[in-house]
């Protein structure tokens, strides 16, 4: 379970995140939507202890992320290209992450097999370093790496952006499968309302750092969200 308590982040006087309480139960597929600057990435960065909140605390599975590093054992994330190592080949990068997460080489090979569709023959066995892959392929590498070692908390920032339609559909399947396992908490942010409603059980709408809506996904959710953004 992940808890954000009295979390506030401001740069000088500009408040970018202001959350009284947000609890995400274990196993939930959690979606985060909002316009640019709504605080989505900031929220994730606080959860990963990449930025220091001005106030408040973030607890991941009973571990306060600022006080202990133990959350690293069961959490993984892909926020942007800074989660890739450009001078490695995709395989080398996967092995590197696997080694850190204590996954054996044969296990990893089996694990990677299930993504054959997603990779579309362009990732494994190629002759390219990650830095030379297209933006979309880089993203595939990063997302798949975030799933290595069966983490129980997976955080993905804008996973669908920059991907071609086929890949988007395949990725959605993967995420749905992942969240079907009740042990895994998946946190996703997106600009695309349809994508995010499709894969999440619950959607939180951020606006200027504040929670505006907190919806349990149903058939009406997409309409509700669309009308909200249309209004403005």
């Amino acid at each position, binding site marked *: 379970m992940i808890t954000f308590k009295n979390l506030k982040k401001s740069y000088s006087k500009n408040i970018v995140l202001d959350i009284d309480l947000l609890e995400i139960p274990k196993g939930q597929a959690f979606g985060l939507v909002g316009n640019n600057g709504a605080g989505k990435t900031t929220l994730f960065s606080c959860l*990963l*202890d*990449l*930025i*220091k909140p001005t106030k408040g605390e973030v607890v991941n599975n009973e571990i306060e992320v600022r006080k202990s*590093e133990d959350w*690293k*054992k069961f*959490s*993984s*994330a892909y*926020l*942007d*290209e*800074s*989660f*890739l*190592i*450009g*001078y*490695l*080949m995709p*395989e*080398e990068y996967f092995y*590197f*992450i696997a*080694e*850190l*997460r*204590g996954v054996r080489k044969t296990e990893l090979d089996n694990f990677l097999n299930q993504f054959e569709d997603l990779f579309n023959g362009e990732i494994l066995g*190629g*002759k*390219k*370093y990650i*830095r*030379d892959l297209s933006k979309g392929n880089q993203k595939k590498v990063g997302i798949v790496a975030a799933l290595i*070692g069966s983490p129980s908390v997976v955080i993905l920032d804008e996973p669908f952006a920059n991907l071609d339609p086929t890949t988007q559909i395949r990725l959605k399947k993967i995420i749905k499968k992942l969240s079907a396992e009740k042990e895994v908490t998946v946190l996703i942010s997106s600009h695309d309302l349809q994508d995010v409603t499709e894969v999440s059980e619950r959607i939180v709408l951020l606006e200027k750092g504040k929670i505006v809506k907190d919806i349990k996904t149903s058939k009406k959710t997409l309409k509700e969200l669309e009308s909200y953004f249309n209004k403005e």
Partner: protein
Amino acid sequence: MFQLISLQWKSFFRSASLAGNIVSKIMMFFWIFWSILMSLSLGVIHGTGTSILNPEGEKISDPFSWLNKEMIYIIGYMMIARYLFQKIPILNIRSLLLTPLKKSKIIRYAMHQTIFSIFNLIAFFYLIPFSIMLNLDPDTGYFNSSNLLMWNLSIILIVYFTNFLNILLNKKDKLVIIFGVVLTLIKILEYNNLLDISLYTESVFYSLYDTPTLVITPLALLIYIYYYVFNFYRKNLSIDTGLNMKVKDAKMTNYQWLDRFGTAAIFLKNDLRLITRAKRARSTTIMGILFVFYGFIFMAFDDLYGETMEFFGLFFSTAGFMFTFCGMVPSWDSKHYPLMMCQNITYLDYIKSKWYLGFVGTIFTTILSLFIYSYFGFYYVVVIVCAGLYNLGVNSYTTLWSGAFNRTAIDLDSNKNAFGDKKSFNSKTLLLVIPQLILPWVVFYFVSDSYDKFIGAYAVGIIGIFGIFLRNMIFKIILKTYKSQKYSTISAYKQTN
């Protein structure tokens, strides 16, 4: 022209590493001042043919022909020094291309920036006192002032020729290494009286004095290379050329033999890949290893420098890799720093892995130095081992510790950029080195002064051994510093220059 200057001004003052930049600018100023002072005094010393530091030492009987003879080496090694240290003019060319500034204006501005480089200025500061002293001294022969003036002009033109040549040489690591090896071989041949090429080049340089009209040759060369560089830039200065470099086929590497080293191996493997695949990391490593030869400079002139400086030179020989490559830790990971901070590894283990790299690298440079210097006697073995121990036991920590304040992101993919900064050496890391050298230097100086030079070296080595044993305690301090700097480091690395 003014807009370009103001752009650079802004990039300096709005950069994440501003404080560091200012400090390094101040240090840079002292560095320049020091170089000028050294050139001036060397000009006087060589011009008169006597050393002020050591009046009893050997004298140069004919300074002018001496300089003409050495000129080929001076220019040659200056060329290598330029390649390693001199900054190639870099502007954020990609974004400037779409502005109404004329291409030729951008190029000229970039090229003219190099004119006042310290590498050119020291030539003036050396040659002027040299020529004056030469003319003042009746013993060294009577020189024709106007001929001497023309000779000076020719040499300066040659210096500027090498200045522009250096811009072209950018990226040509192999060529420069071959050049350096050839130059050293020639010197060795000369030293062993087998073949003295400098006798021939001496007459070439002397003819510039003898026949002043020959100044036309270096002048023509300079004009030629100026326009060559200009056209070279011009050709490469469009959005697609240079940006679309050919992608070489990648090859997988496993380095399974490293696996026996446990967690550290996971990172060592990546660091090896970094060194073999990223140009900047590679040239930095080569630099670090070349420092092994640094001790020779002081050994060759021990008349002039004495024991303490000789110790200093040998000390530096074992520290090269530590100061160059490890001096930029953790910037090598700057592009993927958030990944490192989120992976299943504690901050302590991460820092330790960086320390291991420096440790292994220093053992390597120490062994290499041993191979080279043990030839000269037992004392040198002692010095290398003790200096190595000190670097392992003290400087490995100080280098790592100072890395916590490292805010300069390194763009490893910059070879995609036609005029990216590929320089292996940044003046800031070099300047951080100074305090790290002072302590062993002081210890050696005082102990060897009151006992003898062996005991002086042992004293430095013993400090190092202490440091190695205090590892865990020191790591706690380093970790604390890194943790306190974590967030600002992450946000600084996000800035792409």
